[in-house]
């Protein structure tokens, strides 16, 4: 009863929703329509919204005009997956140690992980460049994976810790009394119980690594073969007059795999991120 709306309130809510979603989705709608239009229609005045005689031909022609498109997509996914695995291997033990053990300096370490978020790649670019050059890692996948993973560790630890705190300590202690070693408790008790939380952290890491791979890839790699989608398209279309319809078609093809993945996983992501975030 408390949630019942009168008709004009409902109308207001739907109008507000429509405006909000239009702001969010307009670039995608327009981008998709552009990908259907021939350049002659695109570059004509006055502006026309609807693609008359539009076609899907640019979704075919991009594969020949951007010969490395499949490679860019693959690179994006490889870099994101590698960074996610690397980050998880570091985050899971660290979060466990920071949840279940008391030692001096724990608060400092937790605070330190949070501080990492303050320094984006932009500030640390020069030393990172020199560091990677020193190890001969410039223009390799590692040049994008290694710094990318570092900036996800802080948030990852905090997200997973919020989840681990909700697993009752009695379970560890029961296993300990039964003679399980510490490593075995982590592997056989905590990991299975924490798997929903780990999944959330994994999705967070993957999406971050996938959507923010720009500045490192732009600066630390100049080989076309290793470029992720964003930098590949940026470099390719920045070269001449922008063929907007092909750029948009390539963009939509490029984001398709992750959109499909996301549509399966969105439920876990929303539930997990929000549960960890606002624990009272």
């Amino acid at each position, binding site marked *: 009863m*408390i*949630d019942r709306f009168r008709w004009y309130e409902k109308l207001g*809510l739907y109008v507000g929703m429509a405006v*909000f*979603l239009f702001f*969010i*989705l*307009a*670039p*995608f709608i*327009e*981008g998709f329509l552009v990908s259907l239009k021939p350049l002659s229609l695109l570059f004509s*005045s*006055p*502006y026309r*919204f609807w693609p008359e005689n539009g076609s899907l031909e640019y979704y075919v022609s991009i594969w020949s005009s951007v010969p490395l498109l499949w490679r860019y997509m693959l690179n994006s996914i490889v870099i994101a997956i590698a960074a996610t695995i690397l980050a998880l291997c570091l985050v899971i*033990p*660290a979060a*466990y*140690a920071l949840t*279940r*053990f008391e030692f001096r300096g724990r608060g400092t*370490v937790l605070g330190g992980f949070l501080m990492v978020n303050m320094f*984006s790649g*932009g*500030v*640390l*670019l*020069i*030393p*990172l460049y*020199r*560091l990677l050059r020193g190890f001969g890692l410039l223009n390799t996948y590692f040049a994008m994976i290694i710094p990318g993973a*570092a*900036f996800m*560790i802080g948030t990852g*630890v905090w997200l997973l810790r919020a989840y681990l705190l909700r697993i009752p300590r009695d379970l*560890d*202690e029961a296993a300990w009394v039964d003679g399980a070693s*510490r*490593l075995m408790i982590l592997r056989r008790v905590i990991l299975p119980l924490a798997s929903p939380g780990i999944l959330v952290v994994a999705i967070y890491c993957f*999406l971050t690594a*996938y*959507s923010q791979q*720009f*500045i490192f890839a732009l*600066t630390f790699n100049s080989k076309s073969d290793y470029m992720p*989608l*964003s930098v590949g*398209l*940026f470099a390719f279309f920045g070269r001449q007059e922008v063929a*907007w319809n092909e750029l*948009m078609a390539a963009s939509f093809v*490029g*984001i398709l795999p*992750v959109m499909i993945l996301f549509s399966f996983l*969105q439920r876990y992501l*929303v539930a997990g*991120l929000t549960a960890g975030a*606002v624990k009272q």
Partner: protein
Amino acid sequence: MTSTLGARLFAFALLAPALLYVLAIVAWPLVDTVHLSFTNASLRPIPDWVGWDNYVRIFRSGFGDIIIRTVIWTALSVTTKMVIGLCGACLLNAAIPGRALFRVMTMPPWIVPMAIGIFMWGWLYNGQFGMISGLLQRFGLTDRPIAFLAHEDTAFFATVLTDVWIGVPMVTFYFLAAIQSIPKDLHEAAWSDGAGRLYRFRRITLPMMVPAMVTMSLLSLIATFNSFDIIWILTRGGPSGATTTMIIDTYKTAMGSYHYGEGAARAVLVGLCLGAFCIAYFRVIARISRASWRG
């Protein structure tokens, strides 16, 4: 089992890899940045120690303008994100048919690679043929095409708007979670006492959301201050420096003209300014919350 020596060693062994990694990739470069900022490092192999020269040169070349521009850009973007995010969260929280679908439809700007979303905005802002200019002309709001990214004022606001667009989904979902964590009894008790929807929003929802708003605005402030991709792809800091924020300026100095030493000095200033803003922000928030407790 959690405080013996064995336990401590085990905890340390678990923590060490992550800690060492962050120290190597974040902390050491930070120290190195400070060190480099006092040298004239460039492509030459051995840099010389130059003391405060870099800093002196930076402040003599109109650095104040860049700081002010960055602050306005950040403040404008964060405020807009908070307002739109709050409206969005309230809308997505309302029990209306289609709510689940609307929630999913809010996410794309967040999960799509940032650069791709920015390409799309690049087209929307196109002067001759872009959608925004086109629609403005059709509705007679302007009689000639506007190339949003070619003029200093419009480019500034255009980059802010794109930053808002990318940030809104995350803010919205965080606020939505905050709204949902408010105990239902509060609303029901007030409702049975005859409190209207707007009154309940002002007296229950808003006050209960203050912690979430403080956290989110701070996170958003840090992310926005460090924002690079949007400006670099849309304008590269132009036209004539109108969108050159501190991060863009650092990047141009260091990577564009290979002045690593001076670039490092600019990076140090970015870090210092960000730290100062965070502290100032905390002070203001603390004062406001103390005042509101008393009032």
